């Protein structure tokens, strides 16, 4: 077990290193730099940037160096815990990331909990009640949930909350008066008032996927001999379902969970943009959009690390859930 872990960790480091090279190369592939975007913004607003200034900036951000040299410089910084400066925001990358991490996690974890809390029971129910009226209704609703584009649903809910419900605390996570106050009952109520829209959007769109997968898995598992055997032995149906079937049907979901770990950081990107949530997702998107390369690289690396870690955890989790799977 320990050697297994050690080997996996070794792989992880090599993989991350390869990704850092490929990622760095990719991000720098298209012509132009983040400065171009900045300069265009400035020019569009009626400012001027001289060639000297551009050259000075390129030097300041190391953009005039050949790619390998730039990579080494950046890597050297990363190994010392310095992820560099964001060109667009003019702030250290690490502080930018951290300043938004709390909300990022709140949104992502709420989404994840929602997905599992809702999706698993619904999936199980609809698999065990296949071809009944409730199953049809659930199926139809879920499909519509899957089919609605997230950004659209978010906007419609936002307008609905504002115009029909007359709700005043929409967009963002806090109203102005609570933005900077310590936690209190009022602030929590305000926070929940803001949170329901993103949670509903996430629940409608992503839960539907999850529960379809759960239903499919359950249907598979219910055909297995051991389930039939258990039934034949006269084990209570609910016990058959929840103890034998559900446990096995969860395997692919656990596997998927591993791959979902990176979503903690960049997930709910679209919802965050539309609903004005100050999370890391939109930041990542902007970094890529603006070719803000040190910021983008930081996201890339953290995402990749989470993913690799997630895979490892998924494998370990699978071994724990399913004794038939052996780790060697």
């Amino acid at each position, binding site marked *: 077990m320990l050697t297994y872990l050690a080997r996996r960790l070794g*792989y992880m480091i090599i*993989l991350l290193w*390869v*990704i850092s090279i*490929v*990622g760095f190369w*990719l*991000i720098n*592939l*298209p*012509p*132009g730099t983040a400065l171009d975007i900045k300069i265009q913004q400035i020019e569009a607003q009626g400012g001027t940037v001289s060639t000297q200034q551009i050259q000075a900036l390129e030097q300041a951000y190391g953009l005039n160096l050949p790619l390998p040299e730039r990579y080494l410089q950046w890597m050297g910084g990363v190994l010392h815990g310095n992820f560099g400066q964001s060109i667009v925001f003019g702030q250290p990358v690490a502080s930018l990331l951290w300043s938004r991490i709390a909300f990022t996690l709140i949104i992502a974890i709420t989404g994840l909990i929602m997905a599992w809390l809702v999706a698993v029971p619904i999936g199980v129910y609809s698999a065990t009640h296949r071809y009944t009226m409730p199953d*049809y209704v659930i*199926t*139809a609703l879920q*499909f*519509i949930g*899957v*089919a*609605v*584009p*997230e*950004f*659209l649903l978010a*906007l*419609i809910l936002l*307008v609905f909350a504002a*115009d029909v419900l007359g709700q005043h605390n929409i967009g963002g996570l806090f109203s102005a008066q609570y933005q900077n106050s310590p936690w209190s009952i009022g602030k929590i109520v305000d926070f929940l008032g803001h949170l329901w829209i993103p949670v509903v959007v996430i629940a409608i769109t992503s839960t539907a*996927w999850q529960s*379809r*997968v759960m239903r*499919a*898995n359950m*249907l*598979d598992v*219910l*055909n297995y001999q051991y389930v039939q055997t258990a039934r034949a032995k006269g084990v209570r149906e609910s016990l058959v379902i929840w103890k034998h079937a559900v446990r*096995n049907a969860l*395997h*692919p979901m656990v*596997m*998927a969970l591993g*791959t979902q770990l990176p979503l903690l950081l960049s997930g709910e990107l*679209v919802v965050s943009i539309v609903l004005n949530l100050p999370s890391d997702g939109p930041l*990542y*998107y902007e970094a*890529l*959009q603006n070719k803000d390369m040190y910021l*983008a690289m930081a*996201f*890339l690396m953290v*995402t*990749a690390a989470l*993913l*690799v870690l997630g*895979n490892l955890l998924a494998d370990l989790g*699978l071994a724990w859930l*399913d004794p*038939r*799977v052996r780790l060697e």
Partner: protein
Amino acid sequence: MAVAIPLEDVAKVQDVGQISQFTLMRRRFMQSKLSLFGIVALAILYAMAILAPFLAPYDPTAPDSSNILRPPSTLAFANGSLSVCGQTQILNPRTLTYHYAPDCGKSQPLTLFGQGYSYKLLGIIPANRHLFEVNGNYKIYLLGTDELGRDMLARILKGAQVSLTVGVVAVIITTIVGGLLGTVSGYFGGLIDTVMQRVIEFLLSMPTLALWMVLTAILPVGMPIVERYFLITLILALIGWTGLARQVRGKVMGYKAQDYTSAARLSGASHWRIIVQHLVPNSFSHIVAVAALGIPAAILAETTLSFLGLGMLPPAISWGVLLEEMQKVQVVEQDTWLMIPAALVVFAVTCFLLIGDGLRDAVDPYG
């Protein structure tokens, strides 16, 4: 044929053990009313997409400043035929919106199969007939117009041509590669599995969003948008199979440990035979479920990418572009007819999902 149904029912019960799996699958699929509904609805949708320029009276790209943001036309019965009411455009100087006051006193009857702008059906057959037309200065906009005064009906149908086709190829590639490699990886284990897993991990950690941006930026300037989009989906399909592969691998690893695989192995079956005969069919339901969800996911992804400014962009016309254009408070509050494309996306995706669901049940016909 009326008698045939009970007969078939009887037959079904009796011949389960004898008929081919495929027949069984087809039969099971036909049982699902919702899936059938999906098939029929999609067939109609695809037919409409093919006939788009015939069904719509106007060019989807032609702007018309005297019909900016015009709500769907008011129809009326006049002189015994269906007619369009006359409308005058008035600018409200306070709100800066154009209003259209219908005047059903003056109206113009619809002409069926009249001549209008010329187009090429299926891209080859030149034609200029349209299902319906209105003569003179009257215009008919069954689904209203957009900000530039373009016919939404024409745009929605044109968008369907693009959105219903462009992602499908990528999904097929993804499914085949992912299913196969996942099975192999899970079955053989050992070195093959390790290598495969590392490759998958690497590809999975490739940032798709970043790749999109890079690809859109390095493809040559001036390349038509739809072509560019199609090319990117193909490229990404080559690295997009990993998710499915991992899931299939998980399944196969489970099956491998089961008795029948060991039995088959002991009785001297080749690896290939075990994979094709036992493992693929077993994990097939999962593959089909994922693949069937892949096409609607591709349609949805197209809309999301347009929203992010990475997918199809104007002047291309796709559902994603139409949805992006309607992503405005103004549309949700006032110009609600511009939300019709959204309803269509939801409808089409739901149909695909229903079919996928039916398929999933069908490939597992013994359940």
